[in-house]
């Protein structure tokens, strides 16, 4: 077993895990943060997206042990003090989710995208989010929600 | 008397007849009568059949009345995704 101390959504967390256990399994099974989902376990769907030191990654392709001393961000940390992030608001307003299982991954990835590129083109959004699979929406409403959130965030 | 149109497996079970006339006032009577007339139909009807009366499809509705002179078609029971 490995003992790991890390920060998750700003809070210091210490956990123990198997050396081959993924960060996704640690988050879900040990820390009860089930917002990140396992859709494939092989980095092909993005449902388990989290940020690691501000960069979006698939938590199924990160070992729990690697989180030592790092900053982890999950969907549970996007709303602050009960207030939804503009992306969360626009996802609801634009009906950008149907089943909602890919939504946490999309929100984490879209937030990271907008932090690096506050005014993305449609193509930049589509390519930037190509690692997040959605099977319900055909992406149309997701892209529109991200565009609207970006506009709202630029206005401040 | 009700004129019933058959297709698919039911037509085969009725010895190739595409249309039958049976005495029935509702769907239950119709299905019972058909199974009596053509015992080969019985397992198919039990497995599930839908009945269209004047274009309206009923999947299960034994006591749905069949108006005189209406058009009746028996179909396989359908499922969706």
């Amino acid at each position, binding site marked *: 077993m490995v003992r790991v101390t890390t920060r998750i959504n700003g809070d210091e967390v210490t956990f123990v895990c198997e050396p081959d256990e993924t960060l996704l399994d640690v988050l879900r099974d040990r820390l009860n943060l089930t917002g990140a989902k396992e859709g494939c*376990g092989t980095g092909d769907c993005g449902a388990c997206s989290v940020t690691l030191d501000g960069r*979006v990654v698939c938590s199924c*392709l*990160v*070992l729990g042990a690697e989180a030592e001393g790092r900053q982890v961000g999950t969907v549970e940390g996007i709303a602050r003090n009960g207030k939804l992030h503009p992306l969360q608001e626009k996802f609801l307003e634009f009906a950008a989710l149907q089943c909602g299982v890919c939504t946490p991954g999309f929100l984490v*990835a879209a937030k990271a995208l907008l932090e690096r590129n506050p005014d993305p083109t449609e193509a930049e959004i589509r390519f930037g989010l190509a*690692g997040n699979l959605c099977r319900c929406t055909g992406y149309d409403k997701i892209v529109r929600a991200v565009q609207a959130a970006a506009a709202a965030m630029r206005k401040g | 008397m009700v004129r019933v149109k058959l297709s698919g497996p039911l037509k085969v079970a009725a010895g190739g007849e595409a249309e039958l006339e049976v005495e029935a006032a509702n769907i239950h009577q119709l299905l019972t009568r058909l199974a009596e007339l053509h015992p080969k139909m019985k397992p198919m009807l039990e497995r599930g059949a839908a009945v269209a009366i004047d274009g309206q499809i009923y999947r299960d509705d034994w006591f749905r009345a069949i108006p005189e002179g209406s058009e009746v078609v028996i179909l396989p029971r359908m499922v969706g995704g």
Partner: protein
Amino acid sequence: MRYEAPTTVKGAVKLLAGKAGLARVLAGGTDLLVQMRTDRVAPDLIVDVKRIAGMRRIEAKAGGFRIGAAVSGAELGEHKGMRKAWPGVVEAACLIGSTQVQGRATLAGNLCNASPAADSVPALIAAGAAVVVVGPRGRRTVPVEQIPVGPGRTSLKRGELVEAILLPKRPPRSGDAYLRFIPRSEMDIAVVGAGVSLTLDRQGVCSAARVALGAVAERVIRVPEAEAALIGTKVDGEALERMAASCSAACRPIDDKRGTREFRIKVAGVLARRAAAIALKRARGK
């Protein structure tokens, strides 16, 4: 299984060379963790090299670059100097997987995974890149094309790991490019990949060229005939066609779920030609 995150190269080499059974280097982990999950590899020891100083850095060196083995594709893509000097290499690295994979995957990992379809490898070979290999017997510098020897197999010896990738100084009037064919627009493994780098003299005549193809043989191959078809020409339509034909002729691909032999042979030429056209534009400073 044991997980270790040494902070020095020496420490890493010692771990890898130890009697730990099967040891694997963990850089980005985007191949290794998938292989572990699908039971293709069950290491006894994982050596995470991301805490080694120097492994996470890109350094400008003698006009070229030294890219630490744990530098991610995203970090490479954000490096202005690399983007300007070797856009083909950067583009190839940034084609691997998704934004999420980009945040982790490394050039060194892509190379050492030794897939014939690795996107960054044809671009690195075309760029004339080399790797610094470090092991129990010290350091050696090896051209990129000598690392993979077959699907999943490298020339690295027990206890050795790649420490850095070296990109040479870009000669004046040079350009590089990488293109691949995938059925979707993202997220697929290359069905065919083509990397081209070329240099023009002052008259616009091609004085040097390197061409490499991915997913058309048991490993990424360099195609000297295609290079020869460009050198000494103005990289006009005719030269490009001859280069494309040489590329197709050099292919020895397999039929698999991702593409047929026939398709790969044909498209290898098409992509090499298109990549050369982009490299030419870049060499002309456009």
